[in-house]
């Protein structure tokens, strides 16, 4: 079930540079949410910016009825979001999308994230950890974040930065590829920039590993009504907002 809910902002703080963390109080959406789903947030109550902004769920906190999100300020909408104060209310539609398929046990799992795409991996790790052996691979440009939280929810976290300021210097897919070659990953999950997803899709194909990728697409409605986000999946039109955002990497075309 999807809801429109007026959520009170419980916290809104800068994490590093242009990345912010927000806690939203929720009574309805929080109860139906799962890893990999997203919210459509109206950043103010004006007709400008007009559309809601799609933001992934970072964590579902059922004890305190909180939905946590991480977002990067890239344009008008996210900049306005970063100025919202504790106690203010935001209109949120959710939970949206299919989420990750986490019905697995006893597997060697690789979770790969890049940049702001790391946000939804926390709830994902939560739902896989302990039932599986969870290896997390995180790629940053320069400054890492969320590493401590993910350490609590996995067997190992490996980090790379392009600048070399932390962890391996280079792309995280290089670390992943090395591990796959040496070790034994049964299943991959990935979220991050398109270039990274392409590379992971190729790796998954080469080594014949199943891989779920979370995609982004410009959205009108977020609920399957406008067909703004349709992509071809296995020859059929699928909506990123309801049939995704998570797809099997071998079924989607990432080259366009």
């Amino acid at each position, binding site marked *: *079930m*999807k*809801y*429109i809910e007026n959520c009170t902002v419980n916290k809104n703080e800068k994490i590093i540079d242009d990345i912010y963390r927000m806690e939203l109080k929720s009574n309805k959406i929080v109860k139906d949410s799962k890893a990999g789903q997203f919210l459509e947030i*109206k950043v103010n109550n004006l*007709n*400008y*910016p*007009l*559309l*809601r902004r799609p933001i992934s769920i970072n964590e579902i906190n059922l004890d305190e009825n909180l939905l946590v999100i991480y977002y990067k300020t890239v344009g008008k909408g996210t900049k306005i979001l970063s100025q919202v104060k504790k106690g203010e209310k935001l*209109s949120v*539609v959710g939970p949206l999308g299919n989420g990750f398929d986490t019905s697995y046990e006893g597997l060697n799992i690789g979770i790969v994230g890049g940049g702001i795409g790391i946000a939804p991996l926390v709830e994902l790790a939560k739902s896989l950890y302990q039932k599986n052996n969870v290896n997390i691979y995180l790629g940053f440009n320069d400054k890492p974040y969320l590493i401590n939280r993910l350490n609590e929810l996995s067997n190992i976290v490996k980090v790379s930065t392009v600048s070399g300021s932390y962890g391996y210097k280079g792309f995280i897919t290089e670390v992943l590829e090395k591990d796959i070659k040496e070790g034994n990953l049964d299943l991959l999950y990935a979220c991050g920039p398109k270039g990274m997803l392409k590379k992971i899709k190729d790796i998954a194909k080469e080594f014949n590993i199943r891989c779920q990728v979370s995609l982004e*697409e*410009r*959205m*009108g*409605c*977020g*609920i*399957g*009504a*406008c*067909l*703004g*986000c*349709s*992509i*071809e999946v296995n020859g059929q*039109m699928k909506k990123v907002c309801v049939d995704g955002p998570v797809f099997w990497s071998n079924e989607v075309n990432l080259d*366009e």
Partner: protein
Amino acid sequence: MSKKVDTSVNLNGLILKNPIMTASGTFGFGKEYEDFMDISKLGAVVVKGLTLKPKKGNKTPRIAETPSGILNSIGLENPGVEHFIKEELSYLKRKGMTVIANIAGNTIEEYCEMARILNDTECDAIEMNISCPNVKKGGVAFGTDKDVVYKITSEVKNNLDKPLIVKLSPNVTDIKEIAKSVEKGGADCLSLINTLIGMAVDIKTRRPILKNNIGGLSGPAIKPVALRMVWQVSNTVNIPIIGMGGITSIEDVIEFLLVGANAVAIGTGNFINPAINSELVDKLEEYLIDNNISNVNELVGKIEPY
């Protein structure tokens, strides 16, 4: 609410329990909004534009945001008219809803064939989109030449017993002239406006934001143009008008009724508030009660120009 008000409207024989409708292409086939409201409250549902055969539409990105508006270049992705009849129509009719099928074709004959097919179904009326700016071989020419508009309207009408609504493109020099041709062609009702043609640019990549380069502009930004056109057309023709373009509040609804719309449709507004359609049904009733208006038709065309 104790006092009773009459919100029903008569669109040349097509009776709606209230004048709040959904705009084609923004409400899917209705189901998508059922988590947010009881869709059977609505005056009518106009479904996504249908073509004879299924269509995959344009490549993404298909949506771009602009100041108080959006551009779309969906390109009429739809499962085809047959699929609609089999899978979607009966579901909506079982809920007792008024369902309007929006159709788009590449040739007059295609429009006529779809009219014939839909004529034998439970759908309540047909809205003919002669204005979709996204399909290269399609809409544009039909909607902007008054002679072609007359021809297509009269031929489709000949193939149809159900009410025919013709939806106008705002991308024309003289909307009154087009509206007159539609009326002369025998349409039962007009619907306006479709989207204005626009473009958005990404200066970082130096490319258009839409893969289709151009798209249709909708939302609050176009409301002044829509109000002007509805006003001009309502002063020109005698058939009823469904007004749309940028409606996001009850005040917007009243504005359209005042300039001469007999009913209104909400498009882009659904994306901002997925419960807007049913909220507007309630708010319209409240507005009528608060303003001591017993029948919604009393508002229609009641603007007093200078």
